[in-house]
């Protein structure tokens, strides 16, 4: 519940809809594309996931901050969402293992948020009107000013964001003496992907998004990995070309989320901007190869075109579908050792049902 000194805050959406609430985190203003996540645990992992770069996050879970924050549970070194929109922002927390409160964390990370708004109404709005830009402000609630600022925010479609969150310098991760070596292209990778590889005996070199293929090859990897990340894959020509080059090389290739979309693009299968995306930790996916189902973590606003994938049945095979809307969740390239999934098998937050995909990749590299 609010502390009396909390400043008033406002959320203004591109279509003119306004929500009044109170400030959470730092006093200031933040812009981005509004999206919602339905997970009931793992707020810190969500906030630090680079795929959310440039987005205003609505959390549908009504209490945020209850168990504080813990440095080791971050998915990257900093908060990546552009702003937070929630119902109850709990400054008071309890968890003996935690490092600090969410308020302290937000202040340290200079994140602006708004709380005590009808988050369910906002979700229903996005659900019917689709994703759109918005602005949160606790420094001014003058709508005319905010409207002007909002008009300068670019739309997500056609926006290349991966290179902004990618590592600037290459670095290695894992045990250098591990039996397998993976060249990781970082478009905004989550920490837990690296952890999942390391646990399975992989040594990784993580490369900036725009690294040319030659440098990746120089690492002499057993396989390549295309990471998750923010933004629209379509304008990422540099990465699409790298993916094409990897495919030509015929070494094992694994892509997650944005990596999945880039692999599709490399096969000339277009991607599209979804109405309001999939974000949460309860999305049902069916593995068409095994018939088994898995509950998955998802975070994507773009998807691989289902019709186009059908037209390219000679090149790719759909391996996973979403049981809610039949959207494409995974594919493999025919005649190659390359596969990808739209969702997040590394989870964090979310269920571990799909971790077997890392094992599959390791097996491909071992053979």
């Amino acid at each position: 519940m609010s502390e009396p000194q909390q400043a008033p805050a406002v959320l203004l959406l591109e279509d003119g809809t306004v929500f009044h609430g109170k400030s959470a985190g730092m006093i200031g203003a933040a812009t981005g594309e509004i999206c919602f996540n339905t997970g009931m645990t793992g707020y810190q992992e969500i906030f630090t996931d680079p795929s959310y770069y440039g987005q205003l996050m609505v959390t549908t879970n009504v209490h945020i901050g209850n168990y504080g924050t813990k440095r080791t549970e971050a998915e990257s070194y900093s908060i990546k969402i552009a702003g937070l929109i929630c119902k109850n922002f709990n400054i008071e927390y309890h968890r003996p293992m935690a490092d600090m409160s969410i308020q302290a964390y937000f202040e340290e990370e200079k994140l602006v948020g708004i709380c005590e708004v009808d988050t369910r109404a906002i979700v229903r709005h996005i659900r019917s009107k689709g994703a759109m830009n918005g602005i949160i402000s606790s420094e001014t609630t003058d709508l005319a000013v905010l409207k002007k600022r909002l008009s300068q925010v670019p739309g997500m479609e056609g926006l290349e964001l991966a290179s902004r969150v990618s590592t600037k310098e290459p670095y290695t991760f894992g045990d250098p003496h591990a039996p397998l070596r993976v060249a990781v292209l970082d478009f905004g990778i989550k920490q837990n992907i690296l952890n999942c590889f390391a646990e399975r005996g992989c040594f990784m070199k993580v490369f900036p998004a725009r690294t040319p293929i030659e440098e990746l090859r120089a690492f002499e990897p057993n396989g390549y990995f295309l990471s998750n990340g923010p933004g629209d894959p379509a304008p990422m020509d540099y990465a699409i070309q790298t993916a094409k080059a990897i495919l030509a090389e015929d070494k094992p290739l694994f892509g997650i989320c944005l990596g999945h979309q880039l692999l599709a693009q490399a096969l000339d299968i277009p991607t599209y901007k979804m109405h309001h995306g999939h974000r949460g930790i309860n999305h049902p996916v069916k593995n068409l190869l095994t018939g088994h189902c898995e509950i998955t973590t998802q975070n994507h606003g773009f998807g691989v075109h289902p019709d186009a994938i059908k037209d390219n049945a000679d090149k790719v095979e759909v391996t996973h579908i979403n049981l809610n809307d039949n959207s494409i969740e995974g594919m493999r390239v025919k005649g190659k050792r390359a596969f990808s999934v739209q969702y997040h098998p590394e989870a964090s937050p979310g269920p571990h049902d799909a971790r077997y995909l890392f094992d599959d990749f390791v097996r491909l590299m071992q053979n």
Partner: protein
Amino acid sequence: MPKDPSIQSVLIIGSGPIIIGQACEFDYSGSQASRSLREEGIRVTLINDNPATIMTDPVTADKVYLLPLTVESIVQVLEEQEIDAVLPTMGGQTALNLAIEAGKQGVWEKYNIRLIGVDLNAIELTENREAFRQHMIDIGLSVAPSRIANSFLEGKEAAQEIGFPLVIRPSYTLGGTGGGFVHREEQFDAALRRGLSMSPTHEVLVEKAVLGWKEFELELLRDSKDNVVIICTVENLDPMGIHTGDSITVAPAMTLSDTAYQQMRDEAILAMRSLGNFAGGCNIQFAIDPETEKLIVIEINPRVSRSSALASKATGYPIAKIAAKLAIGYSLDELKNQITKTTSAYFEPTLDYVIVKMPRWDFEKFQGSDHQLGLQMKSVGEVMAIGRTFMEALQKACQSLENNRMGLGADMKEWIRTADILERLEKPSEDRIFRVKDALRLGVPEKTIHKLTRIDPWFIRQIKTLVKMEQRLMRYNVPEDIEEGFFRELKEAGYSDAQIAWLMRVEEQEVARQRKKMGIRRTYKMVDTCAAEFEAQTPYFYSTFDKENESIPTDKKKIIVLGSGPNRIGQGIEFDYCCVHGLIAIKEAGYESIMINCNPETVSTDFDMADKLYFEPVFWEHLEEVLELEKPEGVIVQLGGQTALKLAQRLHEQGYKIIGTDFPSMDLAEDRGAFSNLLKEMDIPYPDYGVARDADEALAVARRTGYPVLVRPSYVLGGQRMRIVINDAELERHVLSIFKHLPGNRVLIDHFLERAKEAEIDAICDGDEVHIMGIMEHIEPAGIHSGDSSAVLPTYSLSVEAVNTMVEYTEKLAKALNIKGLINIQFAIKDNKVYVIEANPRASRTTPFIAKAYQVPYLNIATKVMMGTHKLKDFDIKPRPGGFAIKVPVFSFEKFPNVDKNLGPEMKSTGEAIRYIRDLSDPFFRELDRQRYMYLTR
């Protein structure tokens, strides 16, 4: 895998009479399963001897057997019906035990019956504590250190090895019966002896007590392809040490990080998959050390359990319905989410609200019982509340309890002595959550409260926030002074107008008036399983004070049914049965049916029962807001027991139409003085009585009527604090005790008719005609609460004259009271003279029993008569009597070992069974009749 075509006809086993630990949630699961199978074209046969259940009604099943849950009954069913498979997972431990027993006797094999939805080996494994413990260790999960003991000596050795504090858990008992904590060595011998004797296998587990660890429960579903989903995660606010049935629980988990939760999820799935091969529901309990976040498995129930009903209501996901479909071969990915109808049933519900479940205890009814909570479940019912903050849900739960509380405190019932409060924090009882707030109000440090209660500091801090808000509120003089923002904050934190009024020492109406003037009104949000990600089709709503209202009233004519709140002694499942039939009748009559109740165990609050469901406290403020939004034709109060009836006066005063008998008539029947005057006018005998405001008046009344007298407070349920006393000294003592516990109440004193026979009639009156539904004669003499008596339908020993007199009085009274709908009249017969004891202008406990015994849809008829859409003459009522039906009370005394088991005017039974006998030579009847005077030593 699609539906298995070889299953055409299924037998569902119910859970029998209601006892503590196994209540009407199994009627909910059984009914849902039955409907689920029938919609697949499967013929459903149901066996259960609980006549108050909706599952045993023709609206639920194709063929119903109201037979005792014994192997003999199962054989009879199998002889008479073509059954392909039996589904034993919907009727709790009782149904499972019966299935196991029938299996041992080779019944299933003999009749070539498949057991579906269950793996008996899995059940066996989870029930056998030692085998279970070993199994968990084998699959790599942690459990509390423990040792099994089959003898006193082994138990002592185990204690020596494990150390104190420890837990004793008897094998194969229900609801923790016989178990308990042992903090010190000197308590150990008695506890061990008790545990060994309670276990049917003379086996106990001596386990290290992880007191103060946090407790969580996961509800899982698995299909035949081994797909598993977690439907709900529930956090126990009360940490390890209090039975989960007696704990305040919260969903979603409030204090769990994703790291800790995912480990729990992984372990739960691993454990479920390791338990044989069955398709259905499963419940797993974990404890977590708050310091290290180390996890241990506490127990697993591989079946639909008590918490499945709660999880279904909490998430909107109908677990029993889906579990039934999984049992006949479907896999989760082949089924649709029943709420959205478009997305998959294979998913994990997500909540954008908080639910709080609070148990309802009835210690008052068990004189001498130990109120301290522990391993053994003692509550008799529960409520669930939904809010957009934890505080709102918590306070709404308090408002739902019907304990005369207006919320979490701030209602004149606070304690003020710190020493008493601290003691109650350490020794948890039914009021602990209220005492936590009292302590915070008095300035006890949060740390101390945490140390005494081990409640997670996050919850304590939330309650502290309430204390701070109250301190701020008390700085205002009148409601007009409160600024809108703060007023909203108060309401969003769940404060009722009544609480705000108490804190400001003003009238509730003033607060309500000002609130409405400011436009602070309840909005309604949908429970949709998916946090609004997808559009839902299910009109299941709760109130809050958020901006957007999603409940848009239709332009159809509507009728609201008020439910009966939490189950308790004297008011339980039978009213759920009545409400379900009421809803069906309303729909049949062309109205939109709207249900209001807060009891998660009920069928009437299932997502597809009413046209619209408001899961709300049966509390004036919440009701009024629904009325103002929906503008119904009227409200039915006759079907929800005394709880609903109590709201009749306010409805009447505020100008809302009560469907059926109007308030003045109800009041006439309920008001002892006015009613006796009516009887006098009509020349109907009644026991001499008087009303007293103090002990002197009471003594005067008793002197006039003569001893023995029946003494009770007015306006209570189930004969609470009702006693028969034989002299002045006893009378004085009891009257003083009533005034002490119920200050401001009045005491009713009736002359007690010793050794009289007791009888009762349920009837329907449409204003012109009276239809006698049934006449029941009690086997036990007057003086025992009717709910605790064995009632025989029809009468078996009363004279024709007496019966005719009762019928005549009923007809006269129903008309004199202007009854439109139901009435129940209780009689005493002494020396062939008929006395009227009381009249209840509503559905009674026995209405479902009569409907079952005579196979007449009486509640449907009564509802249509109430609404005025039909007259009695419109129905062709053909009761099908055959021999006698006996309603037999069932008790849960084993939960209260030290309690006085004497029966008297205060009701103590928790449930009932029905027995049919052909004639009075039946040995069952003869045994009951032989024992009729032995009630004092039951």
